[in-house]
């Protein structure tokens, strides 16, 4: 393995001291002169047509400047999904829809001199609705006799399956081999249905956006976004403001997890500011984030496999039904990932078929959420594998070690499924999943605890495992870029389009540049991201930043390195071939061992002869998406009397290639793991009979806190990915895929019941225990 100076080291996160001291600025922290405030009013109905809006009481209120709604403001169709253009998500929404499609759908917005006035005025508006029949059950969505949720001129901008007349927002189909033949060859058939639920990202910073004007009258939008460049494009598209008149600035972001890959607020503040030529702010409350923003897509996953007595799987069939809610943001791609990130795991299955449908309902809108479909798919997949192992008497860990995809291997699935279209063939070139399984099993004491059902009063202990993979960016789609320039003292400004949303990408991109140039991170001054200043990047999603943007930074730094050598050669007359980048900011002449400090090279380039700025830019376009791998282990205590499941310990052992920063990589695993445990056990949307969310606050929507967390152990099994920057792959999403299935498998290990529906609440566990006892 390579010896690095900066990469692989626990360099302190470059923005952390400012965050610790409160000097960092989040979107809502920017003071703009004399701002107006935008507040929204929402549909209380799951499905209705707006027939009249009386905004006169609001307009009569002192301080109210304007009211926007479908009666006075039109926009074209678009998607809020911040994806590449044209997006793989359907154009099925407008800024103000005349037909509202979920309780919480935006019906209009009030612009006023204060936030308080705007909110009071929003409540004073009377909206008349003609109720339309709701559709809450995704299983019925494709039936002939149910309401159609989108029956106007909605369309898919890409040539993908989109059939709103059947409530189908996305469809993914593929097969290879012959599953029927495979089932016929099997000794056993295992078939079950699993259901995952919708949940909220709960990034601690609610969505916010501020639109202001620069001295030239251009619009400057500060936004809590994961996708500043997509946000700029979508703002221009929806408001008609020329793109060159818009600048989107991403300050510090208070977490995203996918929720801020959605362009929600930016078009509204832009529209209002542009119309009134006043600065405009909008900041959602937590309740609004719950009801109106986006959720993890709920998914029903049916898995059927045929297998021999020795466990050899002869065929596997998966049928997914995904509830995308009222709009199809990320519908096709999350659905795709439920297969493309899951099914390659067992690449030796000769016969496989996948059918997936994303359907509209009149419930809150699904969107990007850490794990992005893989989380849903792996909940089913890992329980299915556990069931197979129990049937054939195999140990889960040993079974997965025997069958998982390995280095040098491929899967037909990679080719079959991409982001809504055909995928990209790839060979897995780094995979330490076996090591992850071994180290995780040792840490959880697998051999001591598995199947032992240790009992203490009414509490029974069990252990369970799961495995998963993800990707590193979207192959043939994602592009990142960076530029650098040199300063007098030998430091460099690094301008990255990549969007640090709290993950630490500013730090690891600085490390990559510093490593290449043999300097410390302090000599890299990073700025990300600002559509006026930094080059294009698709954004912080799809686990792309380290791999895609990192590779762009590495290439950029390589070009800088070449300029440093050629300039040093001009300075000294030494042939470039004798020169190399040394450690500590100097070029070394191998002929005589002399050293030329970077600062002298910089000053020579700027002040002496043939002056020029040492600077470079580079882009990287991912032609493959090397998967990180992870083994997840849960030790749980199940109380037979109450149904309460307590996770005692959770181990997540991952292979992210070469971790650029092990502390940040472990932090990603730990955070994703706890989010996954909370998702598995407590978090859920509760709805009343009319489809209104009834628990839209942290009081009633339980996320894990400091008293709830079990012992969490994150492990890095290092590999080196040949296509990644310094061998790196991704790490930010994968950790969330394992907790739900590992806990479910642990519950089975403890008490012999299968929880096939999330979340695994005490009520469900107790009911299953009682049902089993009654049998």
């Amino acid at each position, binding site marked *: 393995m390579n010896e690095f100076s900066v990469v692989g080291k626990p360099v*302190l*996160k470059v*923005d*952390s*001291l*400012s*965050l*610790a*001291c*409160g*000097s*960092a*600025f*989040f979107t*809502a*922290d920017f*003071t703009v002169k004399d701002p107006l405030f935008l507040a929204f009013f929402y549909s209380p109905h799951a499905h209705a047509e707006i027939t009249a809006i009386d905004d006169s*009481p609001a307009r009569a*209120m*002192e301080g109210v400047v304007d009211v926007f709604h479908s009666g006075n403001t039109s926009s074209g169709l678009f998607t809020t999904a911040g994806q590449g253009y044209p997006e793989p998500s359907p154009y099925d929404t407008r800024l103000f829809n005349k037909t509202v499609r979920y309780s919480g759908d935006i019906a209009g917005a009030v612009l006023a001199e*204060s936030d*308080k*006035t705007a909110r*009071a005025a929003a*409540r*004073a508006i*009377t909206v008349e609705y003609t109720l339309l029949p709701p559709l809450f059950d995704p299983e019925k969505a494709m039936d002939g006799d149910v309401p159609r949720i989108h029956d106007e001129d909605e369309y898919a901008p890409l040539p993908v399956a989109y059939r709103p007349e059947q409530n189908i927002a996305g469809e993914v189909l593929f097969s290879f081999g012959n599953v029927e033949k495979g089932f016929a060859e099997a000794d056993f058939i295992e078939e079950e249905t699993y259901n995952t639920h919708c949940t909220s*990202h*709960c*990034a*601690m*910073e*609610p969505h916010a956006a501020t639109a202001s004007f620069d001295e030239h009258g251009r619009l400057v939008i500060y936004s809590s976004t994961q996708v500043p460049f997509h946000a700029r494009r979508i703002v221009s598209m929806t408001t008609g403001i020329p793109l060159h008149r818009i600048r989107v600035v991403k300050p*510090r*972001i*208070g*977490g995203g*997890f996918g929720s801020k890959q959605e362009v929600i607020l930016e078009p509204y503040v832009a529209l209002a500011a542009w119309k009134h030529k006043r600065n405009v702010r909008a*900041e959602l409350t*937590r309740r609004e984030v719950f009801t109106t923003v986006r959720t993890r897509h709920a998914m029903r996953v049916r898995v059927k496999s045929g297998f021999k007595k020795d466990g050899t799987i002869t065929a596997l069939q998966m049928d997914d039904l995904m509830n995308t809610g009222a709009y199809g943001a990320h519908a096709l791609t999350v659905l795709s990932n439920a297969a493309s990130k899951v099914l390659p795991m067992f690449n030796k299955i000769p016969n496989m078929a996948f059918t997936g449908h994303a359907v509209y309902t009149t419930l809150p809108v699904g969107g990007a959420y850490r794990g992005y479909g893989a989380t849903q798919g792996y909940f089913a997949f890992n329980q299915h594998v556990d069931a197979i192992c129990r049937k054939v008497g195999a140990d889960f860990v040993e079974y997965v070690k025997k069958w998982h995809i390995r280095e040098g291997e491929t899967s037909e699935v990679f080719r079959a499924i991409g982001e809504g279209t055909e995928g990209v063939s790839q060979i897995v070139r780094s995979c330490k999943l076996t090591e992850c399984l071994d180290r995780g099993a040792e840490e959880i004491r697998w051999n001591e605890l598995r199947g032992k059902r240790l009992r203490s009063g009414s509490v029974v202990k069990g252990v369970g495992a799961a495995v998963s993979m993800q990707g590193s960016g979207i192959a043939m789609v994602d592009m990142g870029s960076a530029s650098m320039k040199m300063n007098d003292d030998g430091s460099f400004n690094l301008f990255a389009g990549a969007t640090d949303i*709290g*993950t*630490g990408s500013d730090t690891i991109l600085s490390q990559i540049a510093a490593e290449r140039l043999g300097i410390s991170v302090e000599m890299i001054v990073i700025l990300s991201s600002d559509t006026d200043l930094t080059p294009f990047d698709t954004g912080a999603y799809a686990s792309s930043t380290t791999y895609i943007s990192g590779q762009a930074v590495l290439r950029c730094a390589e070009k800088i390195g070449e300029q440093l050598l050629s300039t040093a050669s001009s300075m000294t007359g030494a042939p470039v071939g004798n020169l190399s980048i040394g450690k500590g900011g100097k070029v070394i002449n191998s002929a005589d061992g002399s050293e030329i400090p970077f600062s002298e090279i910089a000053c020579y380039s700027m002040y002496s002869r043939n002056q020029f700025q040492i600077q470079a830019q580079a882009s990287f376009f991912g032609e493959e998406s090397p998967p990180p791998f992870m083994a997840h282990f849960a030790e749980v205590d199940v109380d037979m009397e109450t149904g309460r499941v307590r996770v005692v310990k959770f181990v997540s052992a991952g292979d992210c290639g070469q971790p650029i920063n092990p502390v*940040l990589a*472990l*932090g990603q695993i*730990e*955070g994703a*793991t*706890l*989010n996954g445990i909370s998702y598995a056990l407590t978090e859920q949307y509760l709805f009343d009979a009319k489809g209104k969310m009834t628990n839209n*606050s*942290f*009081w009633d929507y339980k996320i894990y*806190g*400091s*008293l709830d*967390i079990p012992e*969490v152990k*994150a492990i890095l099994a290092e590999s080196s990915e040949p296509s990644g920057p310094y061998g790196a792959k991704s790490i930010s999403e994968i950790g969330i895929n394992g907790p739900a299935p590992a806990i479910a498998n642990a519950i089975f290990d403890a008490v012999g019941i299968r929880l096939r529906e999330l979340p695994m609440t005490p009520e469900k566990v107790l009911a299953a225990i009682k049902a089993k006892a009654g049998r």
Partner: protein
Amino acid sequence: MSEVSPAWWGGIEMKGSFIVNGKKAEWSFAPDAVLLDVLRNNGHTEVHRGCGEGECGACAVILEGRLVNSCQVFAASAAGQKITTVAGIGSIHSPHPIQQAFVEAGAIQCGFCTPAMILAVFCLLQKTPNPTDDEIRKALDGNLCRCTGYVKIFEAVRLAARRMSSNE
């Protein structure tokens, strides 16, 4: 639905003086304004709004020695009192050992919950210089973090406690 005018009190603002991070401040605000808004409106953007309902803890400040969620305190009721925000215990030029420990332990990801989290630790370590793991968990129960999984936050607290007690 008819609504009470936001200016039901006749639009009259009241005045109050506060000692914020050791400095006297005199601010005017609506009688029903909460401390969080008054602090933020007066430049203390280090105090964050995560939920506005007293559940997430991102807005916590120290009011007369006690950790409070500033979204749940009327500014009027805090008039005349001492308020400490995270900017009051250390700065980027001269960080407090707890702030430094959070940085070094890798306890900060997005950092939105961090200022209030650090104040919660500050209160804990004042009373309990060498807290047990259980005491750390209990002290941070009111501060939600979605990024870190708390592992490195607990490490930061232990690190800060070690350093602060060895200095004293």
